[in-house]
């Protein structure tokens, strides 16, 4: 089962600006995004209208997270992109789950 519970409870994860920057830089490079890492709003949604990532990007992003931080993402369905609610949220998730 995907462990979603911590995501819901983790409404205010500790902010790690360096990690946010690092993840943003990885995404910008791998997904060929037209934005500078420091210009990504850490509170804006990564999926859909915010940063404009789509489901293909999310797959790519999942691979980056597995290679870089040793995290295998799980979700009930492609619609369940809670992890990608925002860069800040994602960084909090990575900080809590990273194995490398």
């Amino acid at each position, binding site marked *: 089962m995907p462990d979603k519970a911590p995501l819901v409870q983790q409404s205010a994860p500790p902010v790690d600006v360096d990690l946010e920057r690092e993840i943003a830089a990885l995404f910008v490079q791998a997904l060929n995004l*037209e934005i500078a890492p420091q210009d990504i709003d850490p509170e804006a949604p990564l999926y859909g209208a915010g940063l404009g990532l789509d489901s293909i990007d*999310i797959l790519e992003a999942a691979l980056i997270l597995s290679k870089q931080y040793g995290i295998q993402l799980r979700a009930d369905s492609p619609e369940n992109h809670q992890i990608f609610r925002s860069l800040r949220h994602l960084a909090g998730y990575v900080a809590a789950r990273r194995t490398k």
Partner: protein
Amino acid sequence: MEYAAGKAADHVKPLLSHESPASVVAYRGGRAIQAQQFLADARQLAERMPSGKHVLNACVDRYHFAVGLAAGLMSDKANLLPSTYAPEFVRQLAQFAPDAFVLTDQAHCDIDLPRFRYPRDLGERNPRCAAVGPRGTAPYCVPQIPQEQVAAIVFTSGSTGTPLPYQKSWGRLTRCVRDGASRLGLLDGRAHTLIGTVPAQHMYGLESTVLLALQSGNAFAAERPFFPADICAAIVAARRPRALVSTPIHLRTLLAAGIDLPPLDLIVCATAPLSQELAREAEQGFKTRLLEIYGSTETGQIATRRTADSAVWHLWPGVRLRSDHGQVYAEGGHLEQATPMCDVLEITGEDEFLLHGRTADLVNIAGKRSSFGYLNAQLTAIPGVIDGAFFLRGGADLDGGVTGISRLAAAVVAPDLDAGTLLEHLRRRIDPVFLPRPLLMVERLPRNATGKLPLQALQALCDRDSPEPGSPQGSS
């Protein structure tokens, strides 16, 4: 026990081919759903759905989708399968079918049509269903659907600004899928489980997960696993023999994820051409054979190949290709009439061909199909856009990453709009996979003397404005 399907007259085809009411049609959350219950659910849904004759079946759960499809077949409602839920596309859909409504199993649904929520009291907990077990009082009677009944209407973008509908009759759909089941080796008397990473709403997903299982007496998994770890978990949870119905993107990410790959008994792949290298890696990784399917919205599925071994496609039994003045047509088999093909095909034998790519106007990104004509029409219809064109960036290695997807670029003349506003407009009109990266705001397009846009000139715009971190392109 009555088994109506065995007595099918020529003008009808059974809704499903499971011989016993206890045959498993689907697995959902690890629980088996038998044919009897599936039919009971579909009958109930058919009674409860609104009276409109067009249902936009947006159910995410594959079992819910299948119940919606079956309920539509029982009550002569066509399932609408648009290529995108972009608001502008849905608006055009509503003009095409004013009685259309959305069938959704999600609490939140953005589609701007009258909404009908998939009833949560259908299924296991329903006392009416519990009463009809294999030895219950209700006879096992499989609905017989007229062959000419329109089961689904699939939409492509067309080459202008208007979506094109393709009516799929029940007879042709089922013949196509049964021929496919035989080709894939799913009619060997064993109970196969099909796990799909593609949505049921996609033509390929419809044919190769829900319909394939229903028409071959096999079962599908209701879940649509997404991340590599999800897909592997779904495979492990499925009974063998088990088949993965997937795409090059999903296979590529699965193989790149560096996780243990559970054994499969068949891999089916479609939506975009698969490389021989990736096919071989997938066969080795999952310890099984991989069959790639070729098809189109217009024809449905018509050929397979064992990609790891050969580039040659083998046509479905009865289907033939014919070339006439440079245009290749498919005919015979489940095809009612000769159908022009949108790809560049080379006929190499009576039932063999090679695929050499797509005709110039077609666009296929991540298995979603559109045309430059359609995308350009949507772009230039935005108020404030004077001129604009989508194009493919030169060199597939420019982007694409591990998933290997090349995105589209666009050059736009719109002096009074900024890139952000323009993207917002586009997002309402076209599927997100076609949104341009980069979107270049230019003073004029590099049209030649005849008004045409040489691809090289467009690609040169990209190179000139190659992205500098910190200066998002197009901000005017």
